[in-house]
């Protein structure tokens, strides 16, 4: 037995601390990072927007927490909460779709897999849609299609930027072709929003796949993604089966898409709100030809002052000082 093994075994065999850990996790006082295993105070983790302070792992979050993180306090105005799913095909797999919907609604207190509304994002009015993976894997059926279409139409009518946080396995099979057609319906609404020269920014969180990727997730003027999020069209297993070989580890990650030029930036969740606000401000129409005083601190100060603020400006990077 090597010294290393001895340490490893010792750690495994320390019953007291493990029992206590488990109890604290069960109490919800502590949360164990599924990536690095480090324990964090649940309250601290929440304050850090569910990003592990140790390794930067982004824990999965759901719609209400996302809205809370992005929208200024007391400015959220939900839209179309009255739209409820139906079972047009009387679909039944191992369970009826009707029962599946009812059970999921009870469990999640959501009507379907997306929440939409209007609100202020750092003072900027925005039309926001947030998909919710808890609701049948965030799958897109008629309700998701209708709510997002209405949101985008509202954005076009009120000249608002649209932000959609994606989290979805794709089209909802239980509504058959009606689900597939939502891809076209939402894209049509985005075409009008675009023709009106308005900004649309999808944020791709884990996971964004299938029919969502092949429609509104990829139609942003600017596309942001969360670190390590799975993003792709075909499922990884399907690709593996067709190719009959193992795929590289980073296949269909946010980083893979950035590398191939399909997302503009990978934005850690803790910076998402400020980056979105910055983008929205940068796309605000400039009405005067005179330099405008922007909300951003360094927008119009003279170059000299700017250099003082950013010492790295025009200075050759010295690698040894890093």
């Amino acid at each position: 037995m090597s010294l290393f093994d001895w340490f490893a075994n010792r750690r495994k065999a320390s019953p007291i601390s493990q029992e206590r850990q488990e109890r604290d996790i069960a109490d919800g006082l502590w949360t164990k990072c599924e990536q690095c295993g480090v324990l964090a105070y649940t309250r601290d983790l929440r304050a850090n927007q569910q990003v592990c302070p140790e390794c930067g792992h982004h824990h999965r979050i759901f719609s209400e927490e996302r809205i809370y993180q992005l929208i200024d306090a007391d400015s959220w105005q939900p839209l179309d909460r009255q739209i409820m799913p139906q079972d047009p095909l009387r679909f039944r797999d191992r369970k009826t779709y009707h029962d599946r919907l009812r059970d999921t609604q009870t469990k999640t207190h959501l009507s379907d897999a997306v929440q939409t509304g209007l609100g202020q994002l750092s003072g900027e009015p925005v039309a926001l849609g947030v998909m919710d993976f808890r609701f049948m894997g965030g799958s897109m059926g008629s309700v998701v299609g209708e709510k997002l279409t209405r949101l985008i139409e509202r954005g076009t009518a009120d000249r608002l930027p649209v932000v959609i946080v994606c989290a979805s396995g794709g089209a909802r099979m239980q509504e058959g072709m009606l689900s597939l057609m939502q891809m076209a319906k939402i894209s049509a609404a985005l075409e009008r929003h675009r023709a009106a020269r308005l900004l649309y920014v999808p944020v791709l969180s884990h996971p964004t796949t299938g029919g969502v990727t092949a429609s509104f997730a990829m139609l942003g003027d600017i596309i942001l993604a969360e670190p390590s999020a799975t993003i792709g069209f075909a499922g990884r297993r399907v690709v593996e089966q067709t190719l009959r070989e193992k795929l590289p580890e980073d296949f269909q990650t946010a980083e893979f898409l950035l590398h191939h030029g399909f997302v503009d930036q990978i934005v850690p969740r803790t910076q998402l709100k400020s980056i979105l606000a910055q983008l929205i401000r940068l796309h605000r129409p400039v009405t005067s030809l005179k330099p405008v005083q922007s909300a951003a601190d360094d927008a119009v100060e003279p170059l000299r002052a700017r250099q003082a603020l950013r010492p790295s400006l025009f200075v050759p990077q010295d690698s040894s000082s890093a």
Partner: protein
Amino acid sequence: MATTERKPILLDFEKPLAELEARISQIRELAEVNSVDVSDQIHQLESRAQQLRQEIFTSLSPAQRIQVARHPRRPSTLDYIQAISEEWIELHGDRRSGKDDPAMVGGIARFEGRPVVMLGHQKGRDTKDNVTRNFGMAAPGGYRKAMRLMEHADRFGMPIFTFIDTPGAWPGMEAEQMGQGEAIAYNLREMFRLEVPILCTVIGEGGSGGALGVGVGDHLMMFEHSVYYVASPEACAAILWKDAARANQAAEALKITAWDLKQVGILDQLLPEPIGGAHADPLMAAETLQQALSQNLARLLQMSGDQRRDRRYEKFRQIGEFTEQTEAHI
């Protein structure tokens, strides 16, 4: 068109029919050898065979319909294009990816005197061709080629005919790197922008997003034995039932036939097929297609570009089933 001398490829539910037909030719041979007149009996048997064929093909289950839709002899996009147009010049490439995708074909044709852009998925006519054509599974470059041709059509005021026949978009490593999702998404949005008439026809298999990627138009038609689905029954069974062998059950549940899609307001027009399927009489199928395209094109040409765009938007806008309750119930 497929030559008629080739040995027919039988689907399993056609077996009773094949047996009957074998018996007819057997009797005919025997009668010839023994010089007996059996024309009455043969006539009787033949009309029974005809009846049986009709019975079989009017009561196909969704799973059986998929078999017809995927029939190796089923007329393909290029077959129909060549049959219905007076001239045809195929164009290649998306000008971006550095290669041409043989699973998506397109070009300019003359249809009833008018230049039209025609395009669609192309399955192979035999095994070797199928490998080249990647079984009609287009790569991102295929969707971008289709878009390039549609832009061309819009610039020159040519109507667009698209033909849908694919198991789905190609799920490969390279396809993901090249942005399969983006390529399809882009087409979905831009097809709503084009002013020229767009007529879409599912001629065989309408496989999910890969089909929809050239499927946004003013008028959607489907051949009677075609299918159009959100996910292939095989994939659906594997995911929802965790058992790929339940594909027949999934085919039933997914509502994939032309009749099903008519009912939910997705399909505009069903095109009848010759008894025994389009492959039994490809010319007749082509004639049906030509007439339907001709009539609908004439109708759409009477509208302005803006009118067509608005109608197209409304057509897709109303698809979906949900209820709206009053706030108090939530």
